[in-house]
């Protein structure tokens, strides 16, 4: 792509990533969550691939694959950790753990991140899975040559 596109892409990449991670992080308080935030981050990857090409974007399929499996494992693992009561039991909420152990205050709040138990962790797990999964899909689509060429 032209230098203009590459420069703008490079400039926009960081804000897109930050916004995506913000959506993941605030998933238990505001609209959005792991899937939406992960998709935003993956759109940043897509921008890089469009601007610099599949090889030049610096994305590694092996690394994305590990992150994807890791995200899914964290999600299912958190569900398994609740087995003291039941599968998916929110064992951190309401005083059960040291972090995220407060209830989400009803109504508008200034962004009390330290709430909702395992939900923020699960949002991160889903976010990692989705950003790596969608990222590798976009990467593979770009890597395989199309039939016309």
């Amino acid at each position: 792509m032209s230098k203009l596109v590459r420069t703008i892409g490079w400039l926009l990449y960081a804000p897109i990533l930050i916004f995506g991670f913000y959506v993941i992080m605030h998933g238990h308080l505001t609209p959005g969550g792991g899937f939406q935030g992960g998709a935003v981050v993956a759109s940043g990857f897509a921008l890089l691939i469009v601007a610099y090409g599949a090889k030049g974007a610096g994305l590694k399929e092996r690394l994305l694959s590990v992150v994807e499996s890791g995200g899914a494992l964290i999600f299912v693992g958190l569900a398994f950790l609740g087995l003291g009561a039941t599968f998916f039991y929110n064992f951190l909420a309401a005083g059960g753990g040291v972090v995220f152990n407060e209830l989400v205050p009803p109504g508008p709040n200034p962004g009390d991140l330290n709430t909702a138990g395992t939900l923020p962790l699960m949002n991160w797990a889903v976010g990692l899975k989705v950003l790596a999964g969608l990222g590798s899909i976009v990467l593979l689509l770009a890597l395989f040559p199309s039939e016309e060429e």
Partner: protein
Amino acid sequence: MDILAHVPILVVGIPLLGAFATPLIARAGARARNWFAIFILLLTTALAIALAVSVFQAGPRVYVLGGQSFGFTLPSGYFFPIRIILEADGLSAFFVLIIAVTTLLGAIYSTAFMRAHSGLEKYYALLLLLAAGMFGMVVTGDAFNFFVFLEITSIAATGLVAFRTGRAESGEAAFKMMVLYNIGGLLVLLAVAILYGQYGALNFAYLAKLIEYSLLDVVALALFVLALALKAGAVPMHMWVPDAYPAAPAPVTMVMVANTQIGLYGLYRICFSLYGLKLTPALVGWIVIILGILSIFIGVSMAVIQRDLKRLIAYSGIAQIGYMLLGVGVGLAVLGTPALDSYGLMAMKGGIFHIVNHALYEGLLFLAAGAVSYRAGTRNLDQLGGLAHNMRWTAFFFIIGGAAIAGLPPFNGFASKLIIYESVFKFNPILAVIALLASIITLAIYARAFQSVFVGPKLPAYKDVREAPPSMMFAMAILAALVVLFGLFPDLVVRYLVSPAAQALVNRAQYIEAILGAGLGVR
């Protein structure tokens, strides 16, 4: 922590965990990956047996996801369930056993069969994901959860059918499947949305208590029947089956057979447990019977003319799905009348017994056909011949499978077909005659297939063909042994496996009470 208390979710959770861990374990080498997948499925099989035993002994099991206690279906202050609740009754336990056995043997068979392929960590991950989805569909008691697991099985199955990307047929079959499965999945979603819009709940038991059979409920029922009959591959929604079965690797085809039967599970669950006597049993029963008769007739007559071994088995498998629809359809048609006790329940037992028999012998036939194509390199009946000289055991296993699918004694297909013929004859003699004739044609089809693949002089092209590798022989031997055992002791199988499943279908009140009557406390 009491492991047994958590068994209903563990049969779903363990394969799911295994599916996501497989790509990481695969970094340690192919051997570690294969053993890990087999270990996970062995563990799941043990849990599945534990679940089935506890359900057969103590009645339906419920499990509340994310609740403070797994039996806490109705939190205080609520009079309907709000969490996702799993409910495993006799029918679920019956299917859980089928899924566990087929996926475990499929993974064992795959270790040799798929050795030459690359990217196998994704293959085993998809296989485990398919297992998790199927387990989820049969143990869930929640309509939306049912849809989610249906989609998981659809996506995993499509990926597995498309796995051998080097072949043009794989991509074509997988695309066809993907389109049809997606249409089916969306129909189920629409039906769930209709029920949710009317009753504001998603729990099957609670919906079953409220359901009124209004016009919208009729629409939802029609959507469910259409989508799940498509998933089961019943005529006239069968067109993806003869493409997908031959295109998939042989062990996947065996698991796919179990996957189509999960479509039947959904159909039975919706008709009997969700709607029950509220629907017009005679009408819906006859619709199911007609789907069954069409499947038997078209499946058998298309199988006669096939030249591809796996395609032939796929078409005759469609016919066998017809027997299951016929048996249970007769039970549905006489639901709530005195005829249910005189022959309806027996017909249902025949249909349900045929499900487990079909999973075993159809799996055996596909594995034997896979062994033939693995060694001889083709599945074309015109080119093959004389393989029994070099592949004695595979030929022997194929005879067992062929005799069982044709309903010859003393194999398991005979036992279930006899029950179906006898009870359906009392309902309507013509239906029984059609089923019997189709069975005779099936015998002719398999005699011809066996003759053209295994019998005859040694062909020069196949003079160096060797017997299948040990892991493939092992999977086939287990299935063949089960086929013979189920044929020799059908009374035991019917008493301990099939009867509880049929009773669970008829006993709708028990299904509802397990969730709405249990209340506080732990079962």
